[in-house]
Structure formats: structure tokens, C-alpha cells
């Protein structure tokens, strides 16, 4: 069930360098949403920018949903000007979220930059299921680190300004190896989201260590609802899957990253 609504902006605050968290009142979407799903936001009444912008559901709090975004471009810059009390046109929940039904007892969350977006929501649900969670969060530098809503946080920064100096995947790898549980690795499940190079490295690592892994991908999108077929992602079977409908969450062995 996809809900189209003009909703109330409850708050919109700067939480890190150029990063905003917006809270939107939408009981129906909040009730129906699953971790890993996203919403489409119509940014402007005018035609530039024209296409809606997709944003992961960062978390749900009672009747409210939250998103977090980086004010980098046309749409997000406009979005950053929305004030509490404004109304906003949203559409969702969209896409297929994370699969938490399968076999695992330790969830390893791996986020690069704003790749943390879907994880506070996932963390909340996993905790309800009493799963153990470890969170690896990486960013270029410490001002871009956002961690609230996550559990057992391990941080890496490219410039070493906070936590491990290096990429989050290197850090993850050394940790997993140290854990030295290669036997029981099968009971791990990794949930990854972030820039493509990071996701590729993550998928390689998981293949190497045979770890069950789901990743949330970002593609160009027009409709977010399966209408345009624009968000194609190569799948292992040689066909294409839709990031907005079959995804944005895919199992690492379903698709081929570009």
C-alpha cells in the first residue's frame, strides 16, 4: 500500500556538516514502513527540479517518519530550507526493505557516509527481535559522522580524525578476522549501505568470507514506483532488476554492482 500525502514538517535540523534530519508527520507511512524502504519527496511546486527525490526512511517515531539528507544539490538545498510547520508532498513507503526473517544472530551494520540513513530504523526493529548488533560507520572526516540510533558503534575516517584511519571495509575486515569465528561466520548477517566503491569492496569481502549480506543501492530514479523502468540494476541472471521495486535492498549475490 503506497500512500500519497501532503504532510507536516515537524522539524528540520542540521545534525552534522551540511547534513539535515527532517521529521515528518505521516501516521499511515510510519505504520506501513519497513527498514530499508524509502519515500519520494516532491521538492517544488514548480518544474525545476522536476523529478521527485527519494530518501531512505531514517527512522519512525510513533506517527512521524524521519529522513536524513546531505544538502549537496538542487533538491536537497531546497529541502534544507523547509521549516517546521511547512507542508511537504511525500509518497511512500516505496521499495523492498531489508530481510530480517532469515537465519542470523549477529547483525553487522556497515555504513559509508550517509549510508547510515536506513540503519537507525533497522536497528530499532532488530533490537525488538533481540538480535546482537555491531555498527561500522565510516566517513571522510569526523564532522560527517552521524551515529545516533545505532548500536555498538565502531568508527573509521579516511583522514583518521576519528576512530580507525582508513576505509570502513578495511576496518570491518580486520575486526571480523580478529573475531576469528570463521566457523560460525554463517550466523552473521551484514547490512550495507553507502557509496558504490564501498559496497563493491563489501560484497567482495562477503563473498570471500561467505557471509550473508544485503546492500541498499542508489541509482538514478524518476518514478520510484516501477513505472519508468529507469532504475535498472544488472542482476546475476543477466536480466535487470528495478532498484525502486525489487530493491533498493538486494542480497549481495542477486546483483552486479556497476
Amino acid at each position, binding site marked *: *500500500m*503506497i500512500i*500519497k500525502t501532503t504532510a507536516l514538517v515537524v522539524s528540520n535540523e542540521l545534525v552534522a556538516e551540511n547534513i539535515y534530519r527532517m521529521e515528518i508527520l505521516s501516521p499511515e507511512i510510519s505504520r506501513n514502513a519497513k527498514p530499508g524502504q524509502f519515500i519520494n519527496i*516532491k521538492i517544488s511546486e514548480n*518544474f*525545476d*527540479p*522536476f*523529478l*521527485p527525490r527519494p530518501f531512505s526512511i531514517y527512522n519512525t517515531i510513533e506517527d512521524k517518519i524521519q529522513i536524513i539528507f546531505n544538502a549537496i544539490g538542487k533538491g536537497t538545498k531546497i529541502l534544507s530550507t523547509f521549516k517546521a510547520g511547512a507542508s511537504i*508532498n511525500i*509518497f511512500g513507503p516505496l521499495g523492498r526493505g531489508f530481510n530480517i526473517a532469515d537465519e542470523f544472530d549477529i547483525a553487522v551494520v556497515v555504513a559509508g557516509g550517509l549510508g547510515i540513513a536506513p540503519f537507525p530504523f533497522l536497528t530499532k526493529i532488530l533490537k525488538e527481535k533481540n538480535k546482537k548488533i555491531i555498527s561500522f560507520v565510516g566517513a571522510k572526516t569526523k564532522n560527517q559522522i552521524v551515529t545516533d540510533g545505532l548500536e555498538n558503534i565502531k568508527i573509521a575516517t579516511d583522514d583518521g580524525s576519528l576512530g580507525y584511519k582508513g576505509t570502513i571495509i578495511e576496518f570491518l575486515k580486520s575486526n571480523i578476522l580478529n573475531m576469528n569465528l570463521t566457523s560460525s561466520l554463517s550466523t552473521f548477517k551484514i547490512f550495507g549501505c553507502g557509496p558504490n566503491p564501498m559496497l563493491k569492496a563489501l560484497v567482495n569481502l562477503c563473498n570471500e568470507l561467505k557471509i550473508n549480506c544485503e546492500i541498499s543501492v542508489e*541509482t*538514478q*530514479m*524518476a*518514478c*520510484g*514506483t*516501477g*513505472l*519508468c*523502468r*529507469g*532504475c*535498472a*540494476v*544488472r542482476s546475476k541472471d*543477466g*536480466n*535487470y532488476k528495478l532498484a525502486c521495486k525489487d530493491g533498493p535492498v538486494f542480497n549481495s549475490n542477486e546483483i552486479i554492482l*556497476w
Partner: protein
Amino acid sequence: MVKTEVTIGKLKIKNPVLVASGTFGYGDELLGTVDISKLGGIVTKSLTLKPKIGNPPPRIAETPCGMLNSIGLENIGVDKFITEKLPVLRNYDTAIIVNIAAKRVEDYCEIIKRLEDAEGVSAYEINISCPNVKEGGLEFGTNLSMTAKIVKETRKITDKTLIIKLTPNVTRISDFAKVCKEEGADAVSLINTVVGMAIDIKTRKPKIASITGGLSGPAIKPIAIAKVFEVFKNVDIPIIGIGGITTWEDAVEFMIAGAKAVQVGTANFVDPTVSLQIISGIIRYCEENEIFDVNEIVGSIVLDSPQV
């Protein structure tokens, strides 16, 4: 009570608003969210004889007031459409216009043959104007004799309403509409997308994997209105107007220019319910202006200058 029914060839549609091919799947994509039985009709994604997986990504890019696409006619193929989609669509009280694309004239005919035996097809829209593929591609739509041949051959096979979808990427679109009429087409629909291109200056790569794509959205509306009016002025054939329609005002503008019906495309991506709002907007406009039949709007352009 405004009369909203319009006639395109032998096809009666309950209102002049259709969803455009490739912008609403096969009509069954959002049944939970959009009541398609309120639409004048749906035009399906282009169907080919065999299924097609489409073009490699990236397939789309946003542009000022519009977008580029090169989906490459990804579709399930005519047979699967007949067995899986038609039975669902039949249950809705809306016109099912099947858009078809092919590499060879024979294939156009073969696709229609198969659909003729199936139940539930209201009309055909022949795509000879896709900028992104061989199938139904521009080498058909930009060539008068090929266009004539395709219309002539497909006309032989069906008595159903035959709509030819034209490309704006020609010098005089009315020459093509004329040929369509002469060869027996019931109507023309225009415009398909305009060939366009965008480059990411960071990577210096085209933003679309197939390099060029089709431009759509509000940006092309003035081009589409000009083409619709050119055909309306020069050829006596029903016109379905397409291009950048996002509001009921846009739809009315196309009808004033000479379109009997309109198709809403890219706007569905911003709001899949937009077509329903456009229909109610047209009705409100008629009521406020004491227009009792939407057909009164068609071609009602007022020209005081002598140019025409």
C-alpha cells in the same frame, strides 16, 4: 453535467485523458493507488514480438524541466502480455490501447495478429518514433515511405482503431500525418520524445549509457503544441496530443491547439495520480466556462492575425 466522451476513429473513450506509453507500465503497476477505471484509457509500454531486457543503465537523467530516457523498450513481449496482463486489465472499465514496436514490418503485423485473437484490446498505437532502439525506431518514423508501408500493412490486419505515434525529430511532421491518413490510419499521436543528450562534466561521460536519449517533460511542451497545431492546420485526422502535460491547463492548451485527446507521460513519475486530477480539472474548466461538451474545446484556438 459536462459531456466528456471523445471519439478517436472507432474508439470511444469516456474522457480525453490517457496515460502515455512507457510511463504507466502495463496499467497494472499501481492498481492499489490509482483507479485506472477513471481514466479515458491506458496506453501500454511498447510491446515487441519477443521480450526485451532493455538498455544498460544509466537509463535516465534529469534535465531542466524534464528528463532524458533510454529504456530501450524493455518489455515482457506480446505473448506474456496477452496471457498475464490482458486478463487483469479487461476487468477495468477503461480503454486498453496497446502500443507496439518492431524491427520489421512483418513483426508489427505479427504482433497485431496475436493481439487480434486476444480479448480486451481497444486500439493499437504503432510506435515508429522511439529514439533509443532499432525496434520502432527513428529510421521508420523519419522516413515517409517506411511510415506509409507500416501503416498500409498494419491497416490490412485490423479493423480496430489504428493510431500512429509520430516523432518530432523531423522537418515537417504534417507530411508524416498526411501519409498516415492516406494509408488509412484512424489517428496520429504526437509527440514522442525529442532526441537529447547530457554529459556529466565530472566524468565527461554521457549521463545516459546509450549516449543520446529521449527528452520529455514540461520542457518540450511548446514544441509539442507547435507540432499538434501544425498537423491540425494541415491534415484532417484525429490528433492525440502528448508532450509535457502536467496540469489540466496543459491538457486544455493541447485541445485548443487541435488535440481530441491527450496523453500524460513523465508527469506520472512525479505524481501517478496526476491524470485523475487533470480529468477533474478539465471538467471544472468546462463547468466554469459553460462548455457542455469537451469536444467544443478541440481546435478552438482564436487567431486574429492573418498568418494562417
